[in-house]
């Protein structure tokens, strides 16, 4: 456990430089929240969050951190668990800040706070975050950030197109409507489901990353 904790801490320090950039994205999100809809910052902050989570791979490459990881007493599984745990915690922090920002915009613009809209946005954007990160990380572990960044999101577009295509076939809107109806009465459940689905996506992605990373050369 100590090694995983250290790996998370190391990732935190590796991407230290991006935190200032993250503050800038909060400001942009707030602006959009004020001029468009108070719910918008949640989606924007989580989309930016996906980008920031991948930055650890970029800094790693730029600074020859393969050598550092090569001398540290870290198992490859510790590196993987640490990286995902860091990304998960980062996602939680981003979502919490996004929720607070959105709520404050609701209040300050004297718009009626739509709790269900807030919960839905938080839950769905968190699932998106975990899905996008879960898709990108195994690719980064396999090919590295600089080689893979451009095409990392391609599978996401295919999945999106596939989902649109399938939604016609399986009457997805009605299914979605009934799911939302259920969750409108169980909002805490909605949030918890988002976290659980995110966790499951991370676990699947983590296993994939381990499989590609365990035999890789540092």
């Amino acid at each position, binding site marked *: 456990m*100590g*090694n995983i*904790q*250290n790996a998370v*801490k*190391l990732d935190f*320090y*590796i991407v*230290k*430089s991006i935190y200032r950039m993250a503050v800038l994205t909060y400001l942009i999100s707030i602006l959009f929240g004020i001029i468009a809809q108070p719910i918008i910052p949640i989606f924007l902050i989580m989309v930016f969050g996906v980008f920031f989570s991948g930055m650890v791979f970029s*800094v790693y490459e*730029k*600074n*020859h*951190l*393969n*050598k*550092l990881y*090569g*001398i*540290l*007493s*870290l*198992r490859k599984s510790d590196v993987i668990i640490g990286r995902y745990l860091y990304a998960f915690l980062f996602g939680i922090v981003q979502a919490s800040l996004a929720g607070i920002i959105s709520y404050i915009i609701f209040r300050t613009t004297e718009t009626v706070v739509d709790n269900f809209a807030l919960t839905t946005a938080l839950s769905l954007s968190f699932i998106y975050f975990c899905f996008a990160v879960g898709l990108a990380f195994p690719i980064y572990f396999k090919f590295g950030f600089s080689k893979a960044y451009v095409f990392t999101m391609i599978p996401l577009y295919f999945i999106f197109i596939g989902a649109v295509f399938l939604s016609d076939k399986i009457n997805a809107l009605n299914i979605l409507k009934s799911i939302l109806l259920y969750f409108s009465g169980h909002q805490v459940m909605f949030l918890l489901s988002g976290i659980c689905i995110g966790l499951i996506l991370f676990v699947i992605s983590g296993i994939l990353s381990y499989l590609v990373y365990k*035999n890789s*050369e*540092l």
Partner: protein
Amino acid sequence: MSNVIEVKNLCKNYKDFSLNNLSFSFPTGCIMGLVGQNGAGKTTTIRLLLNMVKRDDGEVRIFGLDNIGDEQRIKQDIAAVFDEVFFVDIWKVCEVEKAISGFYSKWDSKLYSQYLIKFRLPTDKKVKDLSRGMKMKLMLVVALSHEAQLLILDEPTSGLDPVARDELLEILQAYISDGRKSILFSTHITSDLEKIADYITLIDNGSIIYTGTKDNLLKRFSGLLPSSKTPTIDEILIFVGKGGKLHG
């Protein structure tokens, strides 16, 4: 005296390069120089020792332990210095400790601060703003602060000015002075090794040409080279590079 590193029949094959049956060892408390031209296989050997790349065959024992099976235990007592600094360039010198110290059970913060002062490294300066010599010293400070028993140096002096190189050699001599610590020093700047190495392993094109004491190397090559005086390691390296062979 026990051997700090024992390598037996180590092999690694790449598409365009192979390490063939490397075998060498050296005792605790000594400095071994790993010498060879650029591309001879020195860095690959070091990466294999550190299990940064998977070996195809052979055995590596460090402190008597298998370098793969006991990797975590071994790495607590190993430190490495490479030709390039491996810390994030925007970290301040003081932040390096915060990021790294948790990995070492024997990390001594007091020692880290003392070495920073001794090596005149400013704590509030960012890694990217340090000179090449200072970056190398910072890697050494990290190595010394967790009391590593084995220091592996991969081309640490390339790009350093003579003063910084001399300073490094002094630090290394002080490091092994207690007789319990050892150094594996890979370089193609052989004049550094002539001053401090006890053992030499000479690699050429992925194969070992010689491994043993430095004195024996100089003795064995002295009759083979045109100059009548005792040859330098540099002259031996050139001789080997031109296809010269050691017989017997």
